[in-house]
């Protein structure tokens, strides 16, 4: 564990610089590229708002903002999971040249995605103002929710990184799995009102992404208190998964290059 913090400190500057350069090159490589960071979630929000708000009549209060928060968090999770599987391979040129702890690659990717997520949250704030969502102190709960969210994502990503190196078709399998989770997370509907009673509880508490997403909406939109008990529990689980993931990576990372 102490090795983890030592390495984290040692590679901190590298991670930050690398994430910055990545963002910069993404902006530079194509015209109006950064606009897509905004346009992409907005367009999907409009689609889902129409289909589920109008066609299926599943509307909620502040429905577009409701969906936008869901999509923002889902995009972060989804992109991070999918890229973790291939992350060692796609950084082959670096990994086969010099030693670096492989989870640094995840942290770098998280930095890039977190920046995009930050932009999305700015839009959320703008939308909240437009929809005149009443602001309460509960908004501050967003910070611990995000921290737990990052820990959980990091934990899952480390595990996927490890198996992604050895299992060739993990990407396809994960894609299907993620699609399943996507529909069960309640991005465009309210889990607790749309699904019959015992199942909605399972779905919204046992799936960390769904739980955190629901909590985020409660905190930002509806001024409700979040469940600290579950948040603490998922924080512990996230730390545990991360610890297992980091341990596995340290133990096996030197053979990753041999497999590539």
């Amino acid at each position, binding site marked *: 564990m102490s090795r983890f913090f030592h390495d984290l400190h040692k590679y901190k500057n590298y991670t930050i610089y690398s994430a910055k350069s990545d963002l910069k*090159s*993404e902006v530079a490589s194509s015209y109006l590229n950064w606009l897509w960071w905004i346009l992409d979630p907005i367009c999907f929000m409009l689609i889902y708002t129409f289909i589920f708000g109008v066609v299926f009549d599943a509307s909620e209060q502040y429905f577009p903002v409701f969906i936008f928060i869901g999509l923002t968090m889902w995009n972060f999770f989804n992109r991070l999971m999918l890229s973790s599987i291939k992350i060692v391979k796609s950084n082959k040129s670096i990994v086969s*040249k010099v*030693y670096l702890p492989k989870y640094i690659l995840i942290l770098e990717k998280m930095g890039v995605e977190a920046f995009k997520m930050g932009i999305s949250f700015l839009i959320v704030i703008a939308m909240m103002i437009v929809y005149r969502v009443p602001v309460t102190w509960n908004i501050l709960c967003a910070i611990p929710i995000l921290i737990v969210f990052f820990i959980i994502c990091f934990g899952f990503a480390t595990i996927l990184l490890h198996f992604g190196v050895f*299992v060739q078709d993990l990407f396809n399998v994960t894609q299907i799995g993620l699609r399943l989770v996507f529909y069960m997370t309640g991005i465009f509907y309210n889990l607790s009102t749309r699904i019959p009673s015992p199942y909605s509880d399972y779905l919204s508490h046992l799936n960390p992404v769904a739980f955190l997403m629901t909590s985020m909406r409660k905190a930002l939109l509806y001024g409700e208190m979040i469940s600290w008990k579950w948040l603490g529990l998922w924080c512990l689980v996230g730390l545990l998964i991360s610890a297992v993931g980091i341990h596995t990576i340290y133990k096996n990372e*030197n*053979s990753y*290059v*041999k497999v590539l």
Partner: protein
Amino acid sequence: MREYAIEVKDLCVNYRNLQKYSIKQNFFSFKRRKTEQFEAVKNVSFSVEKGEILGIVGRNGSGKSTLLKTLAGIFSPDSGTIDMKGHSVSLLSIGVGFQTELTGRENIMLSGMLLGFSQEFIKEKMEEIIEFSELGKFIDMPVKSYSSGMHSKLAFSITAILETDIMMIDEVLSVGDTKFKKKSYAKMKSLINDQDRTVLIVSHSSDTLRQLCTSILWLHDGVIKMQGDTKEVLAAYEEFMK
């Protein structure tokens, strides 16, 4: 008492059990696949003194690059020990590790940081590296637009200017055009005169090694065939390769 920079004892590196595996295959074939074991480096022990320039020769596939990568910490040894005495190490080889979407300048920064240098130090050295690499205005273009010669020039410049205690060079002494070749030779010479720097060179060019190295290690099928004085080993090696 001689001071050693690298001490390697009974080093073995295997490639085994590490083939990729796919879930689909597991569904459709019930027989276990045989795992092949390939020993790339077998029981190699040697030590390099501080300030020494060690050449490594051997046929293709005799384990030279694997040895260097293991020393650089990219592979883990399956058995045996490597003691680098806490020196900083850099490995330079063909197909160098750049992020091709980023510019040359950013890649210098990133490579430098991965080698363990501080941002300020690299900034100081930046101009020197750019000048040495002769890239001119290309330095602010994405690396993917570089020719292979420019690629290698940049890589060589980074390693040559940001000097680590131990440098490992894998077949890249002959990069670039004639002018750059001369320059890199001169740079290598000056590094050799530096008493604190230890250099390991893998090359197929006997002439290069004869000029630069203080001793030679000859690997054959993963084991040390001969080790010692440059002239003797190279003579034996050339005889063997005829």
